């Protein structure tokens, strides 16, 4: 066997490993969630340390705040950092399921506002709205309550919906994963939660009647009562 052909498989293996590692690195380097989650985390540490010693914090070797700035400016910096520590992206949707896999939750956030949908795909559903403060989003609808807390990139969602306790660890979703809604003038409302693995749950309600939702293909119309209708991706500032 010639040396060249014998080395071939090793070259192939090495090249595959290098391309694989390169692609993973590209994912890691360009991941918006990583910069979002990690940067505010360090900022939060800064903010937590600062109030204890506002004046001395200005002289601390912190590249962001100018060392010679007066205490007032430092306080302003601290405040803006604290609000900026809302580790939520300006616009995002988190999706997940509870441990029993029966209840799905999607929470959309946008510019300090939040909207959520809880659905078991059979009978239980609730649309909630609320606000975002720091790392916490609080949502409600009638007697339903949800609190969504950012935790190291995950969204910890707890609350009560239709009298049932809900606890879901949701993760940041990217299209087609997300929360979709169709609201028609005849009173029909359909909600869908599409998970990152592509599975979906949904419910269709019309004047109190609940039915299974048609299958949603994100970006394509669904047929409701014989008519094509376009579901819309729910944004955090949508109100129901």
């Amino acid at each position, binding site marked *: *066997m*010639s040396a060249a*052909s*014998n*080395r*071939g*498989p*090793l070259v*192939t*293996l090495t*090249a*595959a490993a290098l*391309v*694989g590692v390169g*692609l*993973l690195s*590209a*994912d*890691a380097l*360009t*991941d*918006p*969630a*990583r910069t979002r989650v990690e940067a505010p985390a360090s900022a939060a540490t800064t903010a937590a340390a600062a109030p204890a010693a506002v004046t001395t914090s200005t002289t601390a070797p912190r590249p962001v705040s100018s060392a010679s700035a007066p205490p007032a400016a430092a306080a302003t910096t601290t405040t803006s950092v604290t609000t900026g520590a809302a580790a939520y992206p300006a616009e995002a949707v988190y999706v997940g*399921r509870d441990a029993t*896999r029966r209840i799905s939750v999607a929470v959309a956030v946008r510019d300090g506002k939040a909207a959520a949908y809880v659905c078991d795909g059979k009978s239980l559903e609730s649309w909630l709205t609320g606000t975002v403060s720091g790392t916490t989003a609080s949502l409600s609808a009638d007697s339903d309550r949800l609190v969504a807390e950012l935790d*190291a*990139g*995950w969204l910890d969602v707890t609350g009560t919906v239709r009298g049932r306790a809900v606890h879901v660890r949701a*993760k*940041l*979703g*990217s*299209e*087609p*994963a997300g929360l979709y809604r169709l609201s028609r003038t005849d009173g029909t409302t359909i909600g869908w939660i599409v998970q*990152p*693995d*592509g*599975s979906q749950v949904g419910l269709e309600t019309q004047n109190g009647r609940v039915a299974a939702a048609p*299958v949603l*293909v994100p*970006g*394509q119309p669904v047929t409701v009562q014989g008519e094509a209708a376009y579901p819309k991706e729910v944004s955090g500032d949508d109100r129901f």
Partner: protein
Amino acid sequence: MTASDLDQAGPAARSRPAVAVLAVPVVLGVGVAVALGVHGSLHQGAAYGISIAGFSSGAVAKSWLASGAFALAIVQVVTGAGMWGWFGLGDRAWVAPLHRWSGRLAILATLPVVTHCLYAFGFEHDNARVLAHSLLGCLFFGAFTTKMLALRLRSVPGWALPLLGGLLFSALAGLWLTSALWFFTTTGVTR
């Protein structure tokens, strides 16, 4: 060396080499499979990946790439068997280069898919499909590592390369069935 040299270096020409020569490739392959699984389990799914131009979503791009790899894998089986004298391909000079290059292209096509799976999802066991897909993914790249290393051995038992090739094909077929076919049948064939 020519393709026919390789053919004659096939099962018949080999003098019953010890199975032990496969130890290092097998151990390294198992290591790769386990490392992928552990990495996938420990790494939190980021639900993010770099996008590939020309497709409406990452899932669509992955489904097409996986389908391309699967089509090339069929070429792999035919040319691989051909190098063992099947289909009357034993003495064709183009069979071995076609086998090598279709294999390289197939692996290349799987790389954006597996890195996206690893980065965006990780090893998951939400349901039987996802668990099977995760396990098969680890198996596939472990078997690939073992096969590439086994090819470098001076002599291996005659059944080793067909077995590894068959394992690779089966794993890829399973991967395709649990991902691309599932995606195309649930979401539709889109671009």
